[in-house]
Every structure is written in C-alpha cells, then in structure tokens.
C-alpha cells in the first residue's frame, strides 16, 4: 500500500519535471534584442543610450552592420554614412567625418565623431564645387602638406557625394 502511494506521487511529479525545461527556455526571450546606441559629437549627443535595432557603420576594415549581442570590438571609422534602423522600423542616415565605434559587451554601441549631420543637411552643389577645388590643389604644385590635406578632402567629398546620390 505504501509503495503504491510512492509510485503514484512519482507519476504525478513527472509531468512537472518535463514542463520545467520548457519554462527555462522561455527565459531567453526576456533578453532584449535591441542595441543601445550612443552617438556623440563634441558639441552634441545625437543618440543617448537609445534602443535601436541595427546600426550600419563604415569601418576602416569594411562596412559592417551591428545588431544586439555583437562581438565586442573597436573600429576606426572612415568618413562615411552611418545608418541607424530604429525600433519603429524607420531608418536615419548620418554622415560622420570619421571617428571610432566601440561595441561593448552588454549590447551597447558608442560612436564618437568630430562632425556628423543628417544627410539632408548637406548641399550637393557645395560638395561638387569643393571637389573641383580639391582636385586643382592635388594636381597643382603646392606644398606637400597642402596636397596631403587636399587628398583627405577629396576622399571625404567623394564619399559624401556617393552618399548623396
């Protein structure tokens, strides 16, 4: 009689034991699939630890898209377009003049740059006239430093022109 009762409780206990692992699996869903973005300029912080879905950045090692739980890394940025895909599904594009992006272990992304503006703030005419000006200096007989600076300008302007198209 006594042994029968034990067998019955064991039978009753089993379904609970099967259910337990399933509940534990549900825990993973509580982890956020968003990445916290901080986009900071010396004079302004554009994003302040805001949840976003994805950020595409122009690293020196190549274009990369950063999602939540990305491998921690430090990337030097080329002058180029940063695309932020927000929670609402819309995306915003910023042109940064170059800086660093730091992916931290807890799904945080910090981007630092000297200058950065939304793409619609740029004037295609100003870019075009500066390109021809910089090309003149590169081809001219200025000092080595002037030519080096003009080459940097040309690199930035060409990237900007490609982004504006």
């Amino acid at each position, binding site marked *: 009689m006594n042994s029968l009762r034990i067998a019955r409780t064991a039978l009753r206990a089993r379904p609970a034991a099967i259910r337990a692992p399933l509940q534990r699996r549900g825990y993973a869903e509580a982890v956020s699939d968003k990445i916290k973005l901080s986009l900071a300029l010396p004079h302004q912080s554009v994003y302040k630890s805001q949840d976003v879905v994805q950020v595409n950045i122009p690293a020196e090692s190549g274009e990369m898209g950063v999602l939540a739980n990305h491998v921690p890394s430090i990337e030097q940025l080329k002058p180029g377009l940063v695309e932020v895909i927000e929670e609402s599904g819309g995306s915003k594009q910023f042109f940064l003049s170059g800086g660093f992006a730091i992916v931290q272990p807890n799904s945080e992304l910090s981007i630092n740059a*000297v*200058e950065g503006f939304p793409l619609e703030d740029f004037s295609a005419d100003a870019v075009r006239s500066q390109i021809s000006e910089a090309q003149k200096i590169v081809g001219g007989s200025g000092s080595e*430093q002037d030519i080096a600076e003009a080459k*940097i*300008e040309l690199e930035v302007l060409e990237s900007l022109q490609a982004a504006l198209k």
Partner: protein
Amino acid sequence: MAFAWKASGLTYNKYLSVAARVVRRSLKDDKRLAAERRGEMELRFAKWTNGKQGDMKSVADANAAAAVESASSS
C-alpha cells in the same frame, strides 16, 4: 593598415580636423554658418625668457609651421 595621410607626415588629429572642416563646408548655408564657428581656434601662446614675455603667437599657425618643418625634414 597604411594610410595616405600618415605617409605624408600628418597626425591622426590633423587628419580628423581636415575631414571635419570639409564636412562643415559641405553643409547647406544656414547650418554651415553655425557649424563653421566650431572649427575656429583662437588659442594663443607666448614664450617667456628672462622674466619677459615674448610675442604672442597663434597656436594654429605655429602648429601648421611645425608640421611643414617636420614633413620636410623626414
């Protein structure tokens, strides 16, 4: 990684400031005027010798001159 600006004797700081300057100049007029004010530096310094102040120099000009000198000597 080899960078063209590094080969010509520029520092990363200088590279960033040149890139930022050209980004500011590419803005639409209203934003550009506000932004270009950020690129200006009016820092000045003077060398003191024997308790007397030498002439005031702009840090930006002195930096540019030093960069040209280091580029030509290397």
